């Protein structure tokens, strides 16, 4: 694997936005149907779950990119020595937060997929519908876990978008990077509001 690191890092950065970031945004928006009531969510969820070639869409748009991003991300995270104690600059803090949310998301997403999609796949549940989520989120501990999961995901995406812009050489100047701060903060807030509103619609 000599001299593959550059390509692997670029792939890691790209997959985080396309398709994973696009998928996360879509997922949170579909979840938001829950705010319009049980039947609105169920029909949206039913539509998504019955897309043509859905298993291939899931494998190539979600599972493979996500597994690569998660495991290569863990490898990256454990090759850094974080030093926010002495170098407590904004971007350094955000980097550490990016790493912690990433590690947490590996656990959260694994559990979330096991609890929902996997149960459907093995036949323990007919469909990932409104009632399934309402049952899960009826437990206050699970609700807290899901809130942490959604906020970690939206932060990780928003901050990842910032570093994507630098990694691909789009934002170079200090000024453009500063405006990217504001823009990605907005992305974080908007996606968080959508995600959290959806969660509370099930409670």
């Amino acid at each position, binding site marked *: 694997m000599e001299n593959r690191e*550059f390509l692997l890092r670029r792939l890691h950065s790209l997959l985080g936005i396309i398709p994973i970031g696009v998928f996360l945004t879509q997922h949170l928006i579909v979840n938001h149907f829950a705010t319009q009531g049980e039947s609105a969510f169920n029909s949206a969820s039913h539509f998504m779950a019955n897309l043509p070639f859905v298993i291939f869409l899931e494998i190539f748009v979600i599972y493979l990119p996500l597994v690569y991003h998660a495991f290569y991300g863990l490898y990256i995270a454990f*090759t850094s020595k974080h030093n926010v104690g*002495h*170098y407590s600059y904004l971007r*350094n803090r955000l*980097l550490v937060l990016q790493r912690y949310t990433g590690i947490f998301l590996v656990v959260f997403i694994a559990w979330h997929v096991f609890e929902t999609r996997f149960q459907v796949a093995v036949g323990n549940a007919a469909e990932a519908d409104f009632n399934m989520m309402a049952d899960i989120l009826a437990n206050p501990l699970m609700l807290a876990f899901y809130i942490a999961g959604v906020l970690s995901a939206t932060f990780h995406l928003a901050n990842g978008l910032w570093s994507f812009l*630098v990694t691909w*050489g*789009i934002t170079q100047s200090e000024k453009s990077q500063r405006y990217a701060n504001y823009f990605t903060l907005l992305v974080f807030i908007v996606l968080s509001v959508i995600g959290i509103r959806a969660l509370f619609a099930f409670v």
Partner: protein
Amino acid sequence: MGEAAKTVLFEIERRNSTNEESYWEKFEVPYRANMNVISALMEIRRNPVNMDGKKTTPVNWDMACLEEVCGACSMVINGKARQSCTALIDQLEQPIRLQPMKTFPVVRDLVIDRSRMFESLKKVKAWVPIDGTHDLGDGPRMPERKRQWAYELSKCITCGVCLEACPNVNDKSDFIGPAPLSQVRLFNAHPTGAMNRDERLNAIMGDGGLGSCSNSQNCVESCPKGIPLTTSIAALNRETTVQMFRNFFGSDRMVD
């Protein structure tokens, strides 16, 4: 500081050689106006007695220019890597904690071996190759405004502070760090240096190169020369993006 407190307290992380365990030693140095960390270390060298009143070995450190242009006196002062010649005692919280930059092999006390930086400069071909069998005459002219801009990048003193501040330069990673990366932008900006532009870009696309940056941006905050290291890195990111596609899809003409 009150009238009585006319001394400066130091805690120094020392070791006798590279592979020996480090230990902390405290010193109390008489205060003089406008003193810096180096003049305090000179005072310790003149009278090597620690806080317990015991005679000890003088503390070793590296220095040369004493005006922040050589990069030799880098050390970690109160947790942050910087040049000790410009670390003024009046601006530091006491006790002043001095440590070597342990990202590098520690030779003795505060002396470190920065030769990995020279190795990195060789790796990224940070020079303008002009040797040949006959005189090629003058190279292309460099626009004055471009020269002035490039001058800022040429201020790098390979002091190693950016490597020490970077969370990704450590013994678990082979990242060469920000300083040699920025030198690639400098030499690619040179009209003659640009003739080997693709070689340098391909060098930093290797393992331990540009890809290992995680954008903590500690480097640009820490650089004593104010070099726009993160702008260099982002600019190189764009150039390597193009180079990456060119390497795969491009024709056989690699040089501009």
